[in-house]
């Protein structure tokens, strides 16, 4: 560990910093905080599940781009004017792509008419089709004639040529009903409600800008709500995401401030020097830098969750630094002190690296990213301790503090309670049995609905909008598979027939399929034949007598059919919501009776009911199982390493400390009602890695002169880790709080178990009762004698 090594390592860190700045600052590697992009990145064998997740991803991505506002006022004009005002304000917000009001939707009419009129005979509304099937074309003829003389008629010279029986307006009206657009303005209980829909820039989702957009939108809403007669409500994923992020951010900021202050205070108080503090900071920074460098070299896009979990390795990296700075400078030169801790440090690193590397055995990109970040980060922190820390000034623990004395007392207590080898082996057996029992008693709960804090105000507004306008979140949908687009469209037509009773009896509020917008070619051909035989042939001459229009008989043989192609997508962008890869999606509104829906779908093989929340929960369930497996592999690797280092029995005992900590965290959090999911399992990983460090450091030093220094380092490490992670338990966001609870319980258990399972140290380390040596400074230089050697 010469100055040359240090120089080379500093150059490496500088280059890494430059690389990270270029990659992330220059936008070459994207930090993706979009939750949606996390899912669907796997390659599971089950194609069906893969398609489900892909479809969920598609749906969520589409929905995340929409924010829905509902403006209400006591009269129509006031409501529409306020809606126009809101639309204007929203359109100026950075990140708004388009704002749509009922007026704007009406403005699409000419374009839709122009595009669809050539296909008018093929596009029948369900009611018109039913009328023609019942051979009651006369009713449509009557309507046509009346419409010719209506003040609100949209009839013009062109429509008369292409759609003389005005079938298209009926079709468009039915279409709007399917899509839940309502009539634009809704009147209910003496108030008028106007929807305003903002389409958001797709780059907004998952970026920091979404919070800014929500803030600006809320300002616009509040400006209108200041009018006593106007009320604006809102819904959309962007609002929920921003609310959750805001709570989580506020909590984490508060906790980070407390934790940082606490750690700085602790280090400052114990060492009364900036050296140890700087050592800890450099170690942390280089660990994070190494992690980011590795992950940006390998991946073009890094997910924020991977960054957050990867960064949690600071809890381990800070231990490395504390382990070094806690060695009394009186024990020799910097390099001599380093050599004292190097075996424990190396073993701790190996165990953690093996543990985190085990995460990469899963097929999930997220876990692989966490694994690579953590492994590289830990190695970076380790190398910094070896190469750089010996060059930093160190100070012994201040003698005026009772901390050395406290450590000595604790060591004595631990000595008294440490059982003999058979007792510790028995404890390991009990721990293993505990794991076995936990598989029976502790069940996973991967429901993602439980992760967030929930925002009752937003939920209430969402329900109001859904109730009044029929718009907003509709979590369930159907995935329609089929070899061809035509095949899928026909399935959807059969599906509508099948679900019509549910729509009538209220089991389902509404649905929209691609076939509702673009019927299958088979259906279009049928429609053309119906129109020809039921309208044109019997009533065409009568109509021609009123309007001198040149009627051309439609023919299914010569007509071109409307298809779900790019041209249709251009005019009807809503189609994007109804397609995902080679599948079609059927959007459902207000599923009131899931079992009735499932029953109705039973014998339609190509239709699959998907609940996004359940699908994502299942995915996280799979992640959790992979994490369990990786944890098992890590523990086994730790056992092998410990046995290799300490022999069979002692190795098993050493392994028992982190394993026991994990079990305590598992059982303790279960007792406190913490649900076990992927994220809490990742917290167990951290418990295991830190717990392994504790016991390995202690085991390596138990017969050495720096035994008490190590005990002090472990105590300081516990305090810093509990400050960093334990305070998370006070968060109001369930996910953050649950992780904090698991880590806090686990680390305290690890601290208690580590000296016990590391084996007895000196016969009387503190010498308190017998030797009556009360001067800690004296104790520091006293080598322990081996007792109860394994």
């Amino acid at each position: 560990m010469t100055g040359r090594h240090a120089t080379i390592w500093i150059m490496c860190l500088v280059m890494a910093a430059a690389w990270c700045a270029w990659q992330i600052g220059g936008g070459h590697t994207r930090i993706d905080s979009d939750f949606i992009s996390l899912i669907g990145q796997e390659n599971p064998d089950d194609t069906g599940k893969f398609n489900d997740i892909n479809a969920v991803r598609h749906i969520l991505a589409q929905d995340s781009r929409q924010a829905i506002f509902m403006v209400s006022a006591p009269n129509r004009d006031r409501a529409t004017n306020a809606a126009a005002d809101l639309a204007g304000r929203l359109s100026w917000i950075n990140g708004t792509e388009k704002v749509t009001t009922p007026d704007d939707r009406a403005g699409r009419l000419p374009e839709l008419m122009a595009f669809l009129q050539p296909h008018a005979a093929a596009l029948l509304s369900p009611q018109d089709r039913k009328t023609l099937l019942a051979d009651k074309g006369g009713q449509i003829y009557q309507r046509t004639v009346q419409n010719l003389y209506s003040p609100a008629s949209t009839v013009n010279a062109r429509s008369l040529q292409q759609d003389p029986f005005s079938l298209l307006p009926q079709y468009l009206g039915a279409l709007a009903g399917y899509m839940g657009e309502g009539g634009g303005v809704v009147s209910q209980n003496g108030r008028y409600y106007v929807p305003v829909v903002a389409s958001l820039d797709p780059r907004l989702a998952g970026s920091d800008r979404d919070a800014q957009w929500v803030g600006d939108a809320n300002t616009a809403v509040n400006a209108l709500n200041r009018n006593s007669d106007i009320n604006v409500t809102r819904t959309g994923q962007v609002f929920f995401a921003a609310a959750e992020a805001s709570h989580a951010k506020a909590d984490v900021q508060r906790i980070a401030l407390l934790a940082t202050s606490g750690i700085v205070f602790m280090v400052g108080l114990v060492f009364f020097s900036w050296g140890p503090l700087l050592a800890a900071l450099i170690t942390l920074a280089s660990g994070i830098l190494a992690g980011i460098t590795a992950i940006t070299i390998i991946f073009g896009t890094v997910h924020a969750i991977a960054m957050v979990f990867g960064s949690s390795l600071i809890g381990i990296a800070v231990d490395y630094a504390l382990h070094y700075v806690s060695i009394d400078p009186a024990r020799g030169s910097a390099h001599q002190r380093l050599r004292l801790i190097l075996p424990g440090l190396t073993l701790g690193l190996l165990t953690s690296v093996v543990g985190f590397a085990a995460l990469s055995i899963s097929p999930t990109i997220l876990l692989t990213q966490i694994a690579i970040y953590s492994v590289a980060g830990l190695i970076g922190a380790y190398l910094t301790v070896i190469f750089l820390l010996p060059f930093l000034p160190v100070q012994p623990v201040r003698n005026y503090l009772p901390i050395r004395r406290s450590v000595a007392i604790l060591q004595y207590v631990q000595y008294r309670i440490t059982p003999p080898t058979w007792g510790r082996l028995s404890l390991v057996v009990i721990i293993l049995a505990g794991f076995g029992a936990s598989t029976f008693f502790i069940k996973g709960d991967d429901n993602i609905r439980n992760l967030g804090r929930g925002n009752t105000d937003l939920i209430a507004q969402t329900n109001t909008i859904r109730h009044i306008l029929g718009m907003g979140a509709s979590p369930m949908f159907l995935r329609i598979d089929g070899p061809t687009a035509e095949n899928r469209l026909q399935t959807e037509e059969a599906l509508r027939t099948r679900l019509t009773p549910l729509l009538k009896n209220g089991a389902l509020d509404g649905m929209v399929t691609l076939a509702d917008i673009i019927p299958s070619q088979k259906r279009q051909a049928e429609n053309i034949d119906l129109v020809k035989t039921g309208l044109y042939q019997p009533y065409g001459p009568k109509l021609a007598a009123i309007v001198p229009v040149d009627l051309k008989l439609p023919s299914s043989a010569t007509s071109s059919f409307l298809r779900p192609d790019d041209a249709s997508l251009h005019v009807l962008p809503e189609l994007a919501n109804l397609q995902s890869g080679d599948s079609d999606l059927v959007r459902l509104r207000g599923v009131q009776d899931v079992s009735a829906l499932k029953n109705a779908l039973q014998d339609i093989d190509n239709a699959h009911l998907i609940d996004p929340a359940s699908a994502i929960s299942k995915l996280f369930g799979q992640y959790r199982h992979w994490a369990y497996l990786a944890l098992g592999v890590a523990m086994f690797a730790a056992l092998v390493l410990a046995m290799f280092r300490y022999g069979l029995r002692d190795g098993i005992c050493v392994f028992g400390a982190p394993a026991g900590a994990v079990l305590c965290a598992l059982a303790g959090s279960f007792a406190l009602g913490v649900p076990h999911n992927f994220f809490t399992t990742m917290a167990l990983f951290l418990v295991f890695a830190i717990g392994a460090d504790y016991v390995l450091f202690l085991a390596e030093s138990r017969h050495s002169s720096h035994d008490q220094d190590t005990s002090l380092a472990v105590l300081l490490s516990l305090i810093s880790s509990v400050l960093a992670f334990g305070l998370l338990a006070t968060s109001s966001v369930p996910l953050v709080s649950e992780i904090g609870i698991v880590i806090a319980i686990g680390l305290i258990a690890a601290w208690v178990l580590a000296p016990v399972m590391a084996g007895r140290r000196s016969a009387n380390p503190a010498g308190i009762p017998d030797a009556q040596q009360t001067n800690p400074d004296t104790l520091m230089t006293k080598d322990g004698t081996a007792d109860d050697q394994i």
Partner: protein
Amino acid sequence: MTFARIMRSLLLAGSVICALGTPLTVHARPGVVALEKNQYLRGDFTMNRHLSGFNDGLKSQGEFVLVPGAGLIWQTNAPFPGTTVLGPGGIVNIDADGDRTRLGTGAAQFGIFVDLISSVLAGNWSALENRFHVEFSPPGDTTWQVKLTPFGESAIGGQITDIIATGDTFVQQVRLNKPGGDFDDITLTQQHAENLPLPKEKADLLPKAASK
């Protein structure tokens, strides 16, 4: 649609004269006088619909009833009997046999017609000005003219080029010019304001709550 908006606002002016002895709301611009809350307006119409490329227009005659806040009843007597009701719930066609057909159920595209009419029924020029450039001719002794041109980006702009309304105390003539050279000429006669409630046969045509 938009014509109805114009028509209503202009028709409202008539109520000022007809409802003698009742307080009137007179707006700052010509031809805009609101009906009282408990009044409706009725009259006769003649509509000539000219479609580009067709030599003969479509001519119809009938009567109308305008109820602020409730809707417009447009009853065609010739050449074919039939009724169109434009109300807050949408547009409904009623044929000679009394069979009702809702047009464009739930479609915002059609709801816009009703919205515009409601704006006019409320006698609210500011609502019109949100969608139209409104030009008032200098007031003469007895007649006036209003020209409404939709904003280029507005929803109605794709369907109506402009609207020209003329009248005195009531709207007498409305021309709706449409893209492609189509236009409607509507002449309103025999207009007078009456106190609610509507006669039963008319009230039955409107949504129940609104006809009271």
